């Protein structure tokens, strides 16, 4: 009898502790509240030596309340990780003293999270939104159109970018982008391009930009979308596709193991680290630069002081040692842009996407 009780206790404790975290995630206030409590900072031991980056001059008392970051993806998704990493780094560096938490709003390829952010509580200056290129693409394209654009928010900073690549199996006859694109031009039926995301999204557009740059009709390209980069890689390795379009994440090991050859990268100049020998598209005569950026946004009517606060805070964050370390471990390429530059960058991106979507007849 006693034994039974103790088991019940164990179970009860388990369920309780679980439901605590679960309620957090489900109810909206996220579990990873990185309240900068001393206990939590034990993880980053060398904090004492690392000089805390200079906090921006406090022009006002903002932030007065805890800050919520809306991540328009499920727990564990790309933007969720970006958001959680950001608030942890902001707390670790001591740049933001208020507690910050992440709220997940998955669905609709970011459209649900965006609609929620723009329409609900539009005066709340204590909430932020982290988004990536689908913000622009979803607003432009015909199908699954999202009525909101970046103009319904205040761009605060571009946090970082990663880039797209074109890769083939190591046994493939293609050694450079040119020979591949020539073949595609001659026989679009013969070359199967595989990617981890649907039409009108990063992986797809990566190839389309290249095709467009050399005058190949983008629609003629045989593109097959898989559910995620892993599946697309499987297809390439299993000879169910000839060419892979992908972001750089997770590709490094396949290159090192000699299974895959990367033909080109969409960055403006060569990357560091494991991709340092990969020529850019531009080097090979393709006038294409393509960023998979992550940016931070505030509500549309943010007061100038608050915009200034975040502009400076996020700038200091990008310069901090902590953020550099995060970048190294996550394979992110630092690419900070301040509020003004980011806004201009978004305009440019919009023009670029508009053009390619038009040629694919996917424009609204």
């Amino acid at each position, binding site marked *: 009898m006693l034994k039974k009780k103790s088991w019940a206790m164990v179970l009860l404790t388990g369920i309780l502790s679980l439901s605590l975290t679960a309620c957090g995630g489900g109810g909206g206030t996220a579990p990873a509240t990185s309240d900068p409590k001393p206990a939590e900072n034990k993880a980053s031991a060398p904090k004492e030596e690392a000089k805390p980056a200079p906090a921006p001059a406090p022009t006002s008392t903002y932030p007065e309340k805890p800050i919520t970051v809306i991540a328009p993806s499920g727990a564990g998704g790309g933007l969720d990780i970006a958001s*959680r990493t950001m608030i942890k780094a902001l707390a670790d560096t001591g740049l933001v003293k208020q507690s910050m938490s992440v709220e997940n709003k998955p669905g609709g390829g970011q459209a649900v999270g965006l609609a929620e952010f723009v329409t609900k509580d539009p005066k709340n200056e204590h909430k932020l939104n982290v988004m990536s290129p689908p913000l622009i693409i979803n607003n432009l394209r015909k199908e699954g159109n999202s009525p909101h654009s970046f103009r319904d928010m205040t761009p605060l900073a571009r946090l970082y970018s990663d880039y797209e690549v074109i890769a083939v199996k190591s046994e493939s006859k293609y050694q450079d982008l040119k020979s591949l694109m020539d073949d595609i031009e001659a026989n679009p039926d013969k070359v199967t391009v595989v990617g981890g995301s649907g039409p009108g999204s990063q992986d797809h557009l990566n190839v389309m930009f290249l095709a467009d740059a050399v005058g190949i009709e983008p629609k003629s390209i045989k593109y097959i979308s898989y559910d995620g980069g892993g599946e697309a890689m499987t297809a390439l390795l299993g000879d169910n596709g000839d060419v892979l379009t992908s972001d750089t994440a997770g590709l490094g090991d396949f290159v090192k193991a000699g299974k895959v050859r990367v033909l080109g990268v969409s960055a403006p100049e060569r990357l560091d680290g494991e991709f340092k020998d990969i020529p850019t598209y531009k080097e090979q005569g393709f006038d294409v630069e393509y960023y998979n950026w992550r940016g931070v946004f505030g509500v549309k009517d943010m007061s100038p002081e608050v915009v200034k606060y975040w502009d400076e805070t996020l700038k200091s964050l990008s310069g901090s040692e902590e953020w550099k370390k995060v970048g190294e471990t996550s394979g992110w390429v630092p690419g900070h842009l301040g509020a003004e530059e980011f806004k201009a960058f978004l305009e440019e991106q919009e023009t670029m996407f508009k053009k390619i979507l038009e040629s694919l007849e996917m424009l609204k």
Partner: protein
Amino acid sequence: MGTLDFLINGFSVALQWHNLLFAFFGVLIGTAVGVLPGIGPMSGVALLIPISSTLTGGLGAEDAAVSSIILLAGVYYGAMYGGSTTSILLNTPGESSSVMTTLDGYQMAKQGRAGAALAISAIGSFIAGLFSLVGLILLAQPLSEIALRFGPPEYFSLMLLGLAAVSGLAGKSMTKALIMTVFGLLLATIGMDNVSGVARFTYDIPVLYNGLEFLTVSVGLFALGEVFKTILHKEANEGTIAKITRIIPTKQDMKDSAGPIARGSLLGFFLGVLPGAGATLASFFSYVMEKKISKNPEKFGKGAIEGVASPETANNAAAGGAMIPLLTLGIPGSGTTAILMGAFIMFNIQPGPLLFEEHPQVAWGLIASMFVGNVMLLILNLPLVRIFAQIIATPPKYLIPLIVAFSVFGVYAVQVTTFDLVLLLACGVVGYFLASNDFPLPPLVLGLVLGPMIENNMRRALTASNGDYMIFLQKPVSAVFLIASLLWLVIPLVLKWKGKKVDITESM
């Protein structure tokens, strides 16, 4: 032998006291995650990632990675274990791979054999876990090569076979089963089409872009449908609560389950290796297979212990099999392994072709800890059976609000939209009417789960072949699956057409 050395080394990592502790908490939380509907293994693992990194903060980089991943993997298979509990006791499947368990599990519980059902699923899961572990150690490399060869045509045909099989399984009328399959496939077309990017049946409502959430539909159909049935029919004659006669399965139960467990382990492991629908297909196939080869197929659906043992074994074996593409290729085979992979990457460890060379400590430590975790789960779960089995003894007037609360909470937790609650309610009503008119529900659920995958793979195959349908027959593996699914549908018809005589000899 190198492998053995590595394995021993792995055990020395996994048996360090703090790793034992992590494994224990992992499986404990995992069991709870599995028991609560709504928080599936996927969200369970995702929610624990930040916590695990905080917990292991004091350790060195490599050690922290091993410990965290041991904890998270514990949650994963703990949840696979625990998932059977609600299916059996409350008729509430927490994930697609435990849908089949509800068919006989809930019936057993109603008959007062909840204890036996829970115990056999724990034992079956344990054996499956060990089996897939041995398979993982011995066959990881060759199997990952085979998984690679599985392209869109093969997937398409395999899933078609899955649908054909489940249509043949259910109830008295094959027509009704086929209607349900098609209904499921139709529901699956809602949402943004992955291949062309076209939004279908979404009416510009953003929550519909991702399609109907599987969990909402199945919890509505099964759990709420059952609730409505209990309320409306009052079940006057069944008013007396089924007495729990015994907790431990009888000798006969064990004997009956031995075959299904062995076959379920094998089937589950190999299907689990295939990225995609491994665990779900495995549980459906193994159930159908047991019913086909059983001497008394009419027992199935009415509380046959084989009907619990086989799908539960298969889905756990599949969880083990799914680790193969993850560890050797860096390709996550399911949503949960995708999140596990995220955890690996967070610790700067890239699962993939180089994992075993570059981080042997992590890879083998994880494998050894899976063994430890499985033993812990068995020790943890068998005594819990006694407690859980009491739940079924709760009078309906308390049990029904409990089921409703669990369903609502679980469904809301996944996407946090009220739309899902409306959908849940609607599915409950639909489920009630379908079930009371003898329309089988599992084909609908399988259709919904497999629909997008079947469609995408078919279109991928056709894109690759420039529209030539012969690609499905030119690939030998695909052709075999197609012929098998054709036979599955045609043979019963032929037998029926030939007259009753054949039918009788067949069922004898």
